[in-house]
């Protein structure tokens, strides 16, 4: 995540409908913008498509977590029952694998689930309690309510304050605002 710094973060345009946002985002992406993002009150898959975000790593993390849980619990059970303190429990074999399946199963799910949730949060760079966008006067009042935002960021090589603002204005948004770090 970028460290807080001085200067301009980018320019955001506020749209009334998801359709307008998607159109603008698609156009900007096609125009070569890469440091950009859309902000919507609910998931708009097309917007992600529009800015070229297709895949993410959450499933991989989940798989890795699940395998970790599986291996950890099954080996723990096997070790405990056969090596650490092998006891005769009601005449059952020490390596009672059918009984071991259940905790293993649970831990597989536990680790996978935690990996999915925390993986998502980590990949999203959260927590990010302070974010430059929150400086925009209209962002917090609308972004998670009923407005749709397109942000073109200053880090993009194509960025130029005046030109970018003008470019965004061309999509007829509700407003276009500069965002400071």
């Amino acid at each position, binding site marked *: *995540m970028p460290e*807080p710094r001085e200067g301009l973060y980018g320019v955001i345009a506020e749209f009334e409908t998801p359709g307008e946002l998607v159109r603008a985002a698609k156009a900007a992406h096609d125009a070569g913008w890469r440091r950009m993002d859309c902000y919507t009150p609910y998931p708009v898959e097309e917007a992600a498509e529009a800015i070229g975000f297709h895949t993410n790593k959450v499933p991989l993390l989940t798989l890795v977590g699940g395998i970790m849980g599986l291996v950890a619990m099954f080996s723990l059970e096997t070790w405990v029952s056969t090596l650490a*303190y*092998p*006891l005769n429990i009601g005449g059952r074999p020490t390596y009672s694998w059918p009984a071991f399946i259940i905790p293993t199963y649970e831990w597989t799910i536990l680790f996978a689930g935690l990996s999915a949730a925390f993986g998502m949060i980590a990949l999203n760079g959260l*927590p*990010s*309690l*302070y974010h430059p966008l*929150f*400086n925009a*006067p*209209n*962002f*917090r*009042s609308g972004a998670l309510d009923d407005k749709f935002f397109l942000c073109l960021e200053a880090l993009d090589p194509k960025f130029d304050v005046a030109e970018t603002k003008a470019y965004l204005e061309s999509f007829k948004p509700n407003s276009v605002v500069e965002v400071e770090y």
Partner: protein
Amino acid sequence: MAQIFDRSSNALARMSLVLTGLIVIALGVTLDQLQRSPWVTRQGQRPDQPVPFSHKHHVQGLGVQCQYCHTSVEKSSYAGIPPTKTCMNCHAQIWTNAGLLEPVRQSWATGQSLVWTKVHDLPDYVYFNHSIHVNKGIGCSSCHGRVDQMPLMYAQNTLQMEWCLNCHRDPAKNLRPTSQIYNMAWEGPSSEKPVWCSVSDDKSGKPTAQSVNCVTRDPGTAGTEVASLNLPAMPGVKPVAEAAVLPAAVSYTRFTSQRELGNYLIDHYRIRKPNELSSCEVCHR
């Protein structure tokens, strides 16, 4: 609408998440260590005793044998704490005016017990038997440490279950010839200090533990050094010391490592298998 959080809050939030994780781990490690710490186990602590009795002085200095005071160690679960009379056997004659011994004389005069604080204190649900350990080749120092070097008594070991199991699961590492039970300085055989053991053929009606004969000097060269365990007299059993005078006929095996000796003694002392020794009912009833 303005920011709710300061710029620094991002770093703070992430740091606190990491910190929380670290604290949880640290807490676990601390608790794990704490339960083994002397604060809990009293390992190495020297509680206040009515008389600052020095095992070092009496054992190392004066050569008093363990069993002189702990009389029932070979016969009973309880090794025995000496009655005041045992102290007075000598201290009626020597150090009769020593201030340190005043509580002993008081006890003798009034008939009130000296009240010691237990140093090796097992929980009440643990049933430990001294006699079986001593009779099967576990020396005093294996558990109690170098008592002969302790001016004031303390517990050398934690006496926790894991510590007990450590040996019950692998007794070979601590077994020694029964002739060496009271030898505080016993360190086990090494290539510098080998041990020679033999088994007497005459096993009729005799505990095999007594028919194992171990010596610390090469029996081929010089006279053997033998100390023996006073087992209760049994019909048809000759004292070991007598048997040991007849070395010529038997063949000795030379041991240079504790592991070899331990395994040899496990066979000949008929030590039970680790799964039997670590079975719950052995200690808990």
